[in-house]
């Protein structure tokens, strides 16, 4: 193993011109989408796992090293990565992936973002000026991003453009079928009241017609105090919710507390690929998400 490590720099330097595209995916959902579109023409490195809060990643040495040799970054954007990507970009000093370059791909640029704040003030908590960045909670947002990503890959690697477009067409077909299936499966969730831990599910709520009664964070990114949780319980008494959801990466204590005291199930959702064992790829991500909420409804 060590021998190979020593050889690595030599291999990297002697890479032939027709190498695969090196993709640096900020989050697992965009890593999975890059694999769907790029297939064996791309090497995908995913910077974070489903167990990690994408707001709070450290600019680790490994990420800097990977960004140094990336041809394209596939990130969420809308300031989701503002706490770490700028430092990685600065230290990696790779002009291909500098902001505004073709190697800088942000998924949220291809979807109409909700909840642009009318007031930009840190007193409002962890708000994103461009709007709510958690677009992957609605699978309908994946297709426009996939189209743009295939176009971007084709722009960066014209030799394989046909492959990217072909894979996109195939993906779009499978995705459209899956969307119809999910929408049918999720029919019982329409109009259901829910509570959420972080206000990250707005796109999913719109997709499935879920109704968010209350978030467990008083302001985005601000951990709830016990006083605030008491308020939440009061609200839930007035407007009962069927279950409370949280992302796999989030602390389970606030939702467990509310679950116990309001007598409603706590439902942990994968949030992204790898968030749960079942969410292995983009398709199983939504299979599992709907399945877990349907289970929550039965309890």
């Amino acid at each position, binding site marked *: 193993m060590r021998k190979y490590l020593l050889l690595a720099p030599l291999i990297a330097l002697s890479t032939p011109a027709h190498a695969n595209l090196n993709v640096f995916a900020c989050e697992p959902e965009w890593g999975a989408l890059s694999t769907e579109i790029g297939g064996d023409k791309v090497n995908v490195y995913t910077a974070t796992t489903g167990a990690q809060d994408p707001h709070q990643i450290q600019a*680790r040495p*490994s990420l*800097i*090293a990977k960004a140094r040799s990336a041809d394209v970054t596939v990130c969420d954007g809308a300031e989701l990565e503002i706490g*770490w990507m700028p*430092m990685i970009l600065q230290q990696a000093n790779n002009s291909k992936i500098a902001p505004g370059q073709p190697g800088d791909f942000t998924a949220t640029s291809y979807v109409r973002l909700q909840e642009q704040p009318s007031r930009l003030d840190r007193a409002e908590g962890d708000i994103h000026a461009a709007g709510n960045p958690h677009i992957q909670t609605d699978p309908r947002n994946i297709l*426009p991003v996939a189209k743009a990503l295939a176009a971007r890959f084709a722009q960066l690697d014209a030799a394989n453009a046909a492959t990217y477009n072909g894979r996109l067409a195939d993906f779009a077909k499978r995705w459209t079928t899956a969307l119809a299936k999910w929408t049918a499966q999720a029919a019982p969730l329409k109009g259901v009241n829910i509570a959420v831990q972080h206000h990250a599910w707005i796109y999913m709520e719109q997709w499935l017609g879920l109704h968010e009664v209350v978030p467990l964070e008083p302001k985005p990114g601000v951990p709830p105090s016990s006083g605030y949780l008491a308020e939440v319980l009061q609200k839930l008494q007035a407007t009962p919710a069927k279950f409370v959801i949280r992302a796999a990466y989030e602390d389970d204590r606030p939702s467990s507390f509310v679950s116990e005291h309001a007598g409603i199930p706590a439902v942990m959702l994968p949030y992204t690929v790898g968030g749960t064992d079942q969410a292995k790829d983009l398709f199983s991500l939504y299979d599992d998400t709907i399945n877990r909420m349907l289970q929550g409804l039965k309890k």
Partner: protein
Amino acid sequence: MRRLLFLAALLLATPAFADEAGDLKAIKAQIAQMQHDYDGRIRSLEKRLAKAEGELKVARATPPGKATAVASATGSNAAAQTFDQTAPQPSAPPPDAAPQDVVADNGPPPPAAAPTSNNAFNPGIAAVLNGFYVAASRDTQKQTIRGVQNGDESGLPLRGFSLGESEVSLTANIDPYMSGFLDFSMQDDNSLSVEEAYILSKDLPYGLTVKAGRFLSGIGYLNERHAHDWSFSDAPLPYRAFLNSQYGDDGVQVRWLAPTDQFLEFGAELFRGDAYPAAGAGHTGQGTVTAFVHTGNDIDDASSYLAALSYLHSRAENRTDDDGHSFTGDDDLGIASLIYKWAPGGNPTVNNLTLSSELFYGREAGAFDAVPFAQDRFGWYAQGVYQFMPRWSFGLRYAALSTSMPGPMLSGSPLDDFGHSPRAETALLEFDTSEFGRFRMQYTHDESDLKPNDELLFQYTVIYGPHGAHRY
């Protein structure tokens, strides 16, 4: 139609008993005059409207190809700006932008996110505010570190309330090739100093980065981090003793990041040599030279490390201290640093642990108060900070020094440690209101002087304004 209404209104307003013919005539004449004026105004308005429509049609018919591309690429007002500058600008959005609203799922979607930048072309302005309250068993300003010549920044914070150091920084891209960073620091005594002022390359090939100006040296681990980024509220003892808390100077730095999966970065610096441990800008203003190498990687999903080796050589020409002692000679310092971070699943939001340790080995040789000498010096610290629940963390630090006796001629001088090895033990409790606000309580038992000092410190640190992401 409007004219009819107008007449009706006038008729209604006309006094009912204006039966005298003269009055009626006068009124009729008035009305005729008003009607005439009114028609004239309406005609002129109609003309202007027709003219504006004509211009709009021309603008529609000949939109520059570029403008269309820009409009669909940025969705901003860029298109409006690229229209013929002499034509009156329609106040409505340019026609090319209009179809955006129709685009939903297919076709080139609207880039909803406006390009983010710090206040458009204004530099990002950020402030770091600090405040201390210190209770200490001895006068902190009289405590020294035995065995070394103390620099002016090596001391402990003032007793009682004080501001410590507040900072204001301005940062922005200068052009596609450089960015600039300026950082003012305001001290307790209302003096203002330029802590950092440098330009940084953005677009050099082969993984090269060049920095020039005044900046904190990249040696060690803590050195290039601003004080507000440290895990404890002061620098560990070896930094205070050997680097006057932090070494920054005027110079140039080159870094090279190797194209490997293992993070591997080399750097070298050349400085003026005017700040402790250097002094007097020796060697014609190139008194300090440094070199360092950083390497690091993930161990698994949960843990990662960073290791560094650094070397600093500096020339001191008549380095004086408050007590009038003077040193002229050479200072060599090597630093080995190891940082380890762990969080369950690599998710630091609830629990996380940072362990770090640095070893310092150096030698100072030359003349102290005109007495020739050479002294070997060793120092180290180890610290750990554990976030035991969201917002709350706890830390421990141990630091120690030892210096060789520089010879009988200098016994009793600051270089004489009287057989006493300086050391300090520190405990920390920290509460973060958010990533931008922090309160600390820190207790230190400091034996850097012959008589120990116990110190209890309370500190707040806040950051506001666009502040760059922090280093690992």
